[in-house]
Each structure stands twice: as C-alpha cells, then as structure tokens.
C-alpha cells in the first residue's frame, strides 16, 4: 500500500516554517522528542518511544561454531525489520532501500565500534562460541527510526543476560536460568546515533526530524557517538555538501545529546533492576501508556504557545504499581465517560488461561505468558493460578484478547470465589502471540 503523498502546500509550509525557525510540534531546533525506554519481562527486550516513533529490540543467544578466521571470538548478528505496522509504505518481506540503509548503519554503529567484548563470548576456542543476535523491529514510524533503533539495540544489549557456562576438562555445562543466575554481557561503551536533517542545501539543520520533516529534507547526517566523546560512525546521505564547521558543530551537539540519552538509558536500567529485585511488576505490560479515546491529556500535540519543554532527560517511566480495582466505573471529570476500562472483571465470571494446562505450574513458567497480557493479578494461593481481567481494549493497543464462549467448562474447576453468571458456560481466553 502506498503512503499518503505529500502535497506541495505542506512542503512549502514546512520549509517556510523552518526558515522562521519553527517546527510543526513546537520544538526548538536542537530538541529531541520525549524518549521513553522500557524493558520487557524477558532479559534483553527493550522498547523505545521517541515521540510517536516506536521501536522494539530483542536480544537472544545460542551456541554455535565460530568463524574460521576468528576462532576465539563470539559472533554478533544484527537484524532490523521495517514492519508494515509502522507505516503503509513498508511492505513485509521486501528489502527496501531504507531497510538496507538502516541495517548497515546499525551494524556499523554497534559492530565496528567494538562496544561488546566478543572474546568473552568464547566458550571453547574453535568449537563453541556464543552468537548474540539482536532483532530490532519498528512498530511505528514517525520519523528518525535510526536513533530509536540504536537506543533500543544498545538498551537491549545492556539488559540482556546470557546463561552461565562452566567447563570441566572436555565437558561444557550450560546452566539454565533456574540453576545459576545468568550473567550480563560485557559492554565497553554505549554508542548512540544522533540524526541531523538538512534543509535548503545545508542552510538549516534540525535534530531528530519527524516524519513530515523527513519527507522534505535535503539530506541527513547520522553521527554515532558514545558518552566519552568518541565518534563511532558518521554517515551523510542525500548528497548535500557540508562544510567542515557544520560537521564539527553537529558533532558537538551530538555529544551533548548522547550524554543525556546515555543517562536516560542507565536510569531506566537501574529502575528495572530495582523493580525486579523488589519482586514488583516489571515488563512492558505494566509500562504501556493507557491511550484511551477519553484520555484527558494527549502527550503529543501540545499547543505551541504553552510551555513545551522537551528535554531528553527526566522522562523515564518507572514500573507502575497495579491500579486499584474499582467496583463501579470511574468518572474522572464530569462529562467524561470510560468505556470498558474497568480494571476488574465485574461480570462475575472468572477466566482461566487456555495455555495454563499441564497441572499447576510454577510462576516461572507463567511469566512467559504474562508478558502478553495487559493486567494480570496473581492470587496469593498455593495453586499459583493467575486470574485474568477482561479488558475491552481500544484498537490502539498492540494486543487483543479474544474471549471465546464454550458451551461447557473445559478442563479444571474454577478457582475460589467464582460465581458463574451463566449456567454451564465457561470462558477461556485465547492469547494472540506477538
């Protein structure tokens, strides 16, 4: 499917506004949009929101035979996919030019900068090494995918824990996460990419272009740096001529931005660590913003005249405690209603998970399924059965839960406290896997 074309009117307006140093959303020339970094329940899963641009990175590992030229180094593999979810212009399966460009830039930024110690990934030299695979998937495109992807990738790598390995003579034992705690990767530094968009043959520049600005720009300069002010990679596309002073100025701006963003990533990692230690809820389900139609505040569109101060630091969403259940619908403000946002199922039916079979499992086994649910309440009982909450979700949510009515109850007896409203009808939930 094709994207909506850009009209001449819009193009002229945006260029004129840039000449007057005005951006469409009220930012200043060097301002970033609001960055939000959250981590999933699994180690190595990171979501990054840059304004409306949304990107997810997942890191995984496996033991493979190393390359012949480098027998004692691990392998890093990067893959960036432009999902059709992100924009109507992206097609599934086809490697467009943009996809190739972003992949190449991500590889240069992370692999060539040697930010990960690959020698520590070696298990048995020449025979077994760890292959670390980083998959980045774009979920929504509102401009500047590269920056979001680089932050997500490095965040996921810092968050990831690989299984512990021990070698006794010829025997190699890989311990599962239950037996021994997994260990983090050894990361030397965090390279982050900053994008600059140029307009009118290099006269005007903007940091962090949004989607409409990207459409009218002349050229793009991407600088990948770490907080020690070391440049990891520079790429200029679009064929504009840049002067030396311009590039130097951009690198100075980039170093400021990179230190702010690194600060943000570290804060997010710390928050996630404390949340996990405290046994509290963590994972992206807890930190998803509640975007309802009746929301009182929308973050994105703020009126220009009001104080819109968007700095990269200080916008980290910590893991929220579960919301209080309400017996009756909440009316936050007179005139505003809520549709189906009651946080507890008040229909009197207790739901069971369809996949929770094979007897009572430990909560460790449940954790994988819980990642894909919106709100899960754990009863403090021996059976460790989770009770699901029925949510009528907006189409904005990324997952949908389909409630299927069966003519009779399926496997197990219902948990305590259930009062079935209908005779003999059981409900079971089918979860859509990501």
């Amino acid at each position, binding site marked *: 499917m094709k994207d*909506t*074309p*850009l*009209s*001449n*009117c*819009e*193009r*002229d*307006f945006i260029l*004129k*506004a840039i000449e*007057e140093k*005005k951006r*469409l*959303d*009220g930012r200043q020339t060097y301002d970033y949009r609001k960055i939000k970094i959250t981590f999933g329940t699994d180690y190595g899963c990171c979501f990054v929101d840059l304004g409306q641009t949304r990107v997810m990175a997942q890191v995984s590992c496996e033991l493979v035979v190393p390359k012949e030229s480098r027998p004692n180094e691990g392998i890093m593999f990067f893959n960036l996919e432009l999902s059709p979810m992100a924009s109507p212009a992206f097609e599934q399966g086809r490697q467009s030019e943009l996809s190739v460009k972003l992949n190449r830039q991500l590889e240069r930024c992370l692999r060539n900068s040697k930010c990960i110690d690959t020698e520590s990934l070696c298990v048995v030299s020449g025979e077994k090494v760890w292959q670390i695979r980083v998959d980045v998937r774009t979920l929504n495109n509102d401009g500047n995918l590269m920056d979001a992807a680089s932050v997500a990738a490095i965040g996921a790598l810092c968050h990831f824990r690989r299984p512990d390995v021990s070698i006794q003579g010829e025997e190699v034992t890989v311990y599962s996460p239950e037996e021994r705690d997994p260990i983090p990767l050894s990361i030397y530094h965090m390279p982050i990419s900053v994008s600059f968009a140029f307009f009118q043959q290099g006269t005007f520049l903007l940091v962090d272009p949004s989607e409409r600005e990207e459409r009218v720009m002349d050229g793009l300069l991407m600088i990948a740096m770490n907080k020690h002010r070391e440049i990891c990679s520079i790429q200029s596309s679009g064929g504009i001529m840049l002067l030396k002073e311009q590039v130097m100025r951009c690198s100075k701006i980039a170093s400021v931005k990179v230190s702010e963003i690194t600060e943000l990533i570290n804060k997010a990692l710390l928050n996630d660590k404390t949340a996990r230690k405290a046994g509290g809820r963590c994972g992206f389900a807890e930190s998803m913003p509640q975007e309802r*139609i*009746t*929301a*009182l505040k*929308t973050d994105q*569109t*703020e*009126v*220009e*005249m*009001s104080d819109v101060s968007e700095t990269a630091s200080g916008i980290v969403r910590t893991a929220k405690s579960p919301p209080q259940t309400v017996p009756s619908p909440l009316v936050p*403000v*007179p*005139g*505003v*209603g809520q*549709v189906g946002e009651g946080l507890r199922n008040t229909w009197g039916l207790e739901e069971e998970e369809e996949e929770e079979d094979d007897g009572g499992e430990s909560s460790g086994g449940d954790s994988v399924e819980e990642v894909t649910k919106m709100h899960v309440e754990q009863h403090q009982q021996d059976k460790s059965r989770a009770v699901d909450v029925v949510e009528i979700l907006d189409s904005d949510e990324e997952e949908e839960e389909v409630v299927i009515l069966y003519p009779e109850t399926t496997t197990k007896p219902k948990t305590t406290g259930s009062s079935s409203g209908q005779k003999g009808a059981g409900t079971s939930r089918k979860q859509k896997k990501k």
Partner: protein
Amino acid sequence: MFSVLKERVGEILLPGDEFCCGPQDTLPLTDSGKAGRLVAGPGLRRSGDRLLVSRSGVLRHKEPNKFWIESQQRRYVPAKGETVIGIVTTKSGDVFKVDIGGSELASLSFLAFEGATKRNRPNVQVGDLLLAQLVVANKDMEPELVCIDGSGRANGMGVLGTGGLLIKVSLGLVRRLLAPRSDLRADLEQLFPCELTVGMNGRVWVRAGAVQQTLVLANLLQSCDAMTAAQRQQLFRRLQQGAF
C-alpha cells in the same frame, strides 16, 4: 421500538446490541393507529424485524424519527455527495488521480472544473490540494470527483491556495466543525482571523496571518479532538491569555 430507542439516546452502545419489536411495542387501541417510520442512520442496520448496532458509539436522535450512532473514527470511507480534500497524485491524459484517504484513488476529469473546455485546461499540478465533491462512491467502483456543482459553478471547490497547512483529524471533529451551530467554530472565531477548509475525509486545511498562528491553530485542532467542551474552552482561554 421507538420508545426503547428513545430511552437509550445518549447511551454508549456496542456492536451486537439489538432492538427488537417486543410485545410492549403494540399500539394502544386508543391511538389512531398510524404506522410510525423510523430512519436508521449510520451505525444502525435493519435485519428482519430487529435493529442491529454495527458500530460502537453514542446513540443520537433527531426529531422526529432519525436515530444514528456517533462514533470516533479516523479512517475515511468514501460516500456519495461528500466534499473532500484530495491530493493530486498523477495526471494521465484527461483524468487526474486524486488521493482522498480511502482505499482507492479517485478520478477527476479535467472537464469537471468551472469554465473548463477542451482547449481551456485547468491549471492543476501534481501535488496540489483540491476541494471536490464525490459523485460516485460505492464499494464496487472507483470513486469519482467533480469540482463543480449541479449548475456548473465552482462554489468554493477547486484548487486550494498556498501558504496553509494540511492536517489530519478524526471524522468526528470534522463533523463537529461543519455542524450548523458549532460551538467549536464559535470558539475558534474568538481567537484570531483564520481560514479553514474542512474536508469530510478528515483533512483540514488551515491558514492564518502568520506561520506561528497557523501552527498554533493546527496543533489546537489536533488536541481538540479528544477533549470535552469544558476542557477545550479552558485551553482556548489559556491561549488567549498567553503571550501572543
């Protein structure tokens, strides 16, 4: 059924809700026995003797017998007779292909402009914005547009001027802007002089005196989408007090 519907005006209904002709709907013997007519608008569908709700939203009623469901939607489905803002994508021979936000590109003949003849072609380039009316719009055929009304006059349609900004809003906001006595429009008039062209496909073209004002207006409209009247008035008031 009429009374049942009337009771639920203003309530939020979900797809699957239905209204049947129950025993309570029999006419009382004292009445003159005139058959009533009920007009089911968008979101309501008749199936046999039941009325089904096919969209989620609020039930609205207009005297004497019109009912419809008002819902929030951003995706436009072309309907005949609506005035929309389109972007010209290609010019092939005698026909322009215009993107109106639907599933297909609409076609617009170059003769469908005021004062256009075979020799006198309209001055329309690729990438221009047009305000046009849909004459053919159904699910089986490609939509067709014209830029003249029945009597051959432009009536405000045609190519839009330069210097403005095009924004995309929800269909509900567009309808609120175009309503006859719209208080959203009244509030906007208080702010500063501006020009607004509203297309039923969710596209609005705004232009004000300065670039800054146009940007303010564009951002305002996009935030008004999800606000109640009280919040909106508060926002406007804050704006007026804010330094301009």
